[in-house]
């Protein structure tokens, strides 16, 4: 299988990429690592006239420390994020989730920014980015704007990144000292999540002081389990207390039904995986 013909542009700066997008008009597609886009092009599910490859824009790669934030360039590969002590230390649940993405070959090419803009609800980076209250830096012809993660995911494969714009960075407030866990449920190796839960918690004196929970594949976008987050505050990090608080994990969700499970099954999975993730994140 080979993709339909397209024109190829490989700019070396964000400014050149924005010009290339503007020039190419409305039938251009941005390629980050290409690990989701190339299968789509090969299967001819999409056939853009122009592909704008961001792979040669060095300024979009790398992880840096900006005081109370960790900033990840949108074109940083999964493998480079995994290798980052900054991310592991201050945004551990993102590291945990990326360890579960696809397989090593895909993680060498695939990028965090590409995955976020692709916005597959079964993708693994949306939930941790949402749980960590990250901000997404979007750059367009008019300059830069910052979108809170809670407003970034609009719908299935749809984000706040508009035509002619690029996601350029992910700014994550440091969650230093928070425990974390990504619980992913799949049937076979390197499968997309049937359901997964990203949990990060701050424990103080044996009790949960704060908790953030993101859900993968429980609706058309990643979701926060806010009822559980609130119920966990002040609870002892014990099996019984956490079980009770996590019973509401599927509240307000609208998961899909497919060959891997129907919606009710996914709702059940969400409560079980949330309990496991929270207990592990709390070190219980």
């Amino acid at each position, binding site marked *: 299988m080979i993709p339909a*013909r397209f024109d190829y542009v490989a700019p070396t700066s964000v400014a050149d990429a924005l010009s290339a997008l503007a020039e190419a008009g409305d039938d251009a597609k941005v390629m980050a690592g*290409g690990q989701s886009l190339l299968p789509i092009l090969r299967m001819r599910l999409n056939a853009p006239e122009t592909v704008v490859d961001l*792979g040669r824009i060095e300024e979009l790669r790398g992880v840096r420390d900006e005081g109370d934030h960790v900033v990840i360039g949108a074109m940083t590969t999964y493998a480079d994020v995994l290798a980052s002590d900054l991310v592991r230390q201050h945004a551990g649940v993102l590291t945990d989730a990326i360890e579960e993405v696809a*397989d090593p*070959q895909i993680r060498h090419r695939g990028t965090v920014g590409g995955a976020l803009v692709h916005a597959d609800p079964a993708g693994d980076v949306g939930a941790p980015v949402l749980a960590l209250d990250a901000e997404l830096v979007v750059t367009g012809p008019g300059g830069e704007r910052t979108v809170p993660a809670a407003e970034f995911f609009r719908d299935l494969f749809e984000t706040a990144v508009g035509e002619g714009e690029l996601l350029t960075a992910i700014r994550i407030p440091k969650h230093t000292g928070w425990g974390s866990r990504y619980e992913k449920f799949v049937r076979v190796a390197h499968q997309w999540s049937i359901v997964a839960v990203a949990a990060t918690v701050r424990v103080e004196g044996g009790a949960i002081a704060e908790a953030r929970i993101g859900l993968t594949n429980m609706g058309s976008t990643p979701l926060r389990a806010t009822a559980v987050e609130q119920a966990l505050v002040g609870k002892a990090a014990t099996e019984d207390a956490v079980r009770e608080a996590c019973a509401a994990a599927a509240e307000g969700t609208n998961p899909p039904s497919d060959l891997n499970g129907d919606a009710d099954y996914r709702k059940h999975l969400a409560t079980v995986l949330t309990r496991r993730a929270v207990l592990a994140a709390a070190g219980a």
Partner: protein
Amino acid sequence: MTRINVTVDGVGYEDEVEPRTLLVHYLRETLGKTGTVVGCDTSNCGACTVHLDGRSVKSCNVLAVQADGHEVTTIEGLAQDGELHPMQRAFHDCHALQCGYCTPGMIMQAIDVLNDNPHPSEEQIRVGLEGNLCRCTGYHNIVKAVQQAADEGSTAGASAGATAGGAQ
């Protein structure tokens, strides 16, 4: 057509390619390096695994134009002066194949696993190979081969003379 400069198995090539050309097709059809095979063609099976600047990638999921200016190592670039690479030798010794179709990709990924971690546990080997499928389900001997290569100290620099010093 787009002009690309790629180093493959230590030799530099300059070619005009259509942007839609997949790296695996460039290797096989333009360069005649048919050692790298197309398995599933959906980026699942890993049979087409090669190294790009020293890291494993699925060459059916990379465009040839993306490899412009970079170094590729295929299964054909591993043996040096007629001597099998230690990982190839280990696959041979341990009979780590049945039909052999997954073998080029398995060996390239197995080398990547040891580049990352020269002394992996059995579990780490299995997880490291999770993107490579063996339709004959011959995983047991494949894992034994990787263990043998690890015991022999077959690591990074040995991945291929051609890419020694490649980006890690």
